[in-house]
């Protein structure tokens, strides 16, 4: 079969260049297969992170022709091969080597989110009862494989570099899974507003678009959380009542 050209980022933390490699293409190949072939044939020191080859470990995230994707789930017959296919590491995080980015910031962010705090067991057998409907609501969020493609595509992190102030779509999904859990008693609304910077999200839905697990990130996780924040801190009626109360007290 035909050969195709791949233009791959080579380099370390500071400097890098795009290098072209040619390799034979066969039926059913995905981008990760091509990268492995290139490793074996012409670039044994080409670094890339991968593990399951089945779209479930979230390791092989990269930007293929500029689009954040999992290399193992991107079929070559879905991209034009008459021109070089560019493969770069995810750009929202510092590059380490070749296709590897340092995503450790994400693990630090996760630690800052208040943990699951279930209510006391209230069923006779010492466990809990939940409505199926309530369970179903958070089930979607648990599909996340932490590939961080949503973090990569989010302009708040990618272009505005707000890593200090904004936790990104992945962790808004994580917070939503906890907040909407039928047993959870913790309140994360204040954190979401202040420490987690939910207000930075202007719902462009890019995260939803790139999610390989098809989680409806913006509509089902972020917007409901924004509504909770608004309810608690920006409700005009509540504000008016509070203002009124405050004046009463001052009198």
């Amino acid at each position, binding site marked *: 079969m035909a050969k195709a050209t791949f233009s791959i980022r080579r380099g*370390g933390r500071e400097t890098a260049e795009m290098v072209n490699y040619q390799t034979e293409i066969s039926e*059913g190949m*995905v981008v990760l297969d091509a990268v492995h072939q290139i*490793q*074996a*044939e012409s670039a*044994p*020191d*080409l*670094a*890339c992170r991968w593990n399951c080859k*089945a*779209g479930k470990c979230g390791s092989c995230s990269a930007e293929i022709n500029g689009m954040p994707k999992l290399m193992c*789930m991107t*079929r070559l017959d879905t991209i034009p091969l008459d021109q070089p296919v560019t493969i770069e590491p995810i750009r929202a995080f510092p590059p*380490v*080597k*070749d296709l*590897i980015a340092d995503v450790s910031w994400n693990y630090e962010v996760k630690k800052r989110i208040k943990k699951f705090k279930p209510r006391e067991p209230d069923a006779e057998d010492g466990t809990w009862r939940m409505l199926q409907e309530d369970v179903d609501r958070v089930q979607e969020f648990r599909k996340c494989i932490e590939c961080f493609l949503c973090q990569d595509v989010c302009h708040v992190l990618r272009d505005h570099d707000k890593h200090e102030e904004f936790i990104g779509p992945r962790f808004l999904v994580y917070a939503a899974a906890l907040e909407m859990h039928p047993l959870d008693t913790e309140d994360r609304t204040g954190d979401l507003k202040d420490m987690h910077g939910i207000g930075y999200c202007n719902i462009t839905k890019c995260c939803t678009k790139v999610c390989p697990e098809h989680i409806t990130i913006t509509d089902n996780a972020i917007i409901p959380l924004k509504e909770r924040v608004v309810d608690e801190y920006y409700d005009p009626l509540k504000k008016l009542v509070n203002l009124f109360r405050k004046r009463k007290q001052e009198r």
Partner: protein
Amino acid sequence: MYHQFKQLANLDITTTPMDVGPTTHYVMGGIRVNADTQESTVPGLFAAGECAAGINGANRLGGNSLSDLIVFGKRAGEHAAIFAKENGHGTLDNAAIEQTAKAALEPFDRDGGENPYTIQHDLQEMMQANVGIVRQHDEMVEALNGLDALKSRAARTFVPGNIDFNPGWHTALDLHNLLIVSEAIARAAIERKESRGGHFRDDFPGKDPEFAKFNYSLKKSADGGMEISKIPIPEMPDYLKEVIDEMG
């Protein structure tokens, strides 16, 4: 799985037949360990999970690997902690460390050496063909010869770049271990003249109860080769027999 077939092959497996084939998915044998402590025959070295020989017998069933590593990983950790407390630090042989470090870096300096990926690929092909799913004596002996040739090639690898995240270098280092495991598998499979679990022999298609009485164990011999011995399987304790009887 449904989702993967859909995405990677445009195949709806609920309506269309899919190709199914056997493949290598697990190594049932492994580092010989004490069943209670997970300590290997090297004092202070503990092993658990797929790298350790243990609970799976002649075939591992789906799901058992995870419970294996959780249960025996916990035991290994606990007993390693006890060992460390009781024995403190060992003494290090600096000359041996230097020698190992030097050998590990040699592939970078070997001009004209072979690409380690090519050797790994050839090893895979050779083992798949000769010690694969259906085995027989002559092919496995052939494999031992093949391994000799691959060993000398593995000693002459070359990799570009440096030690920073270099998969070619990792492959060069892995080859040493892959060759040891391949040889142990081939030697044990030649001796086991029966078929049992994942080990199927064309020339001995039946199960032989005699072979259920011992395990094969391989270790480094005095001349640097590999020697094989039979280790009797201890009789099952009564409490385990009871469990098995109960389960029918």
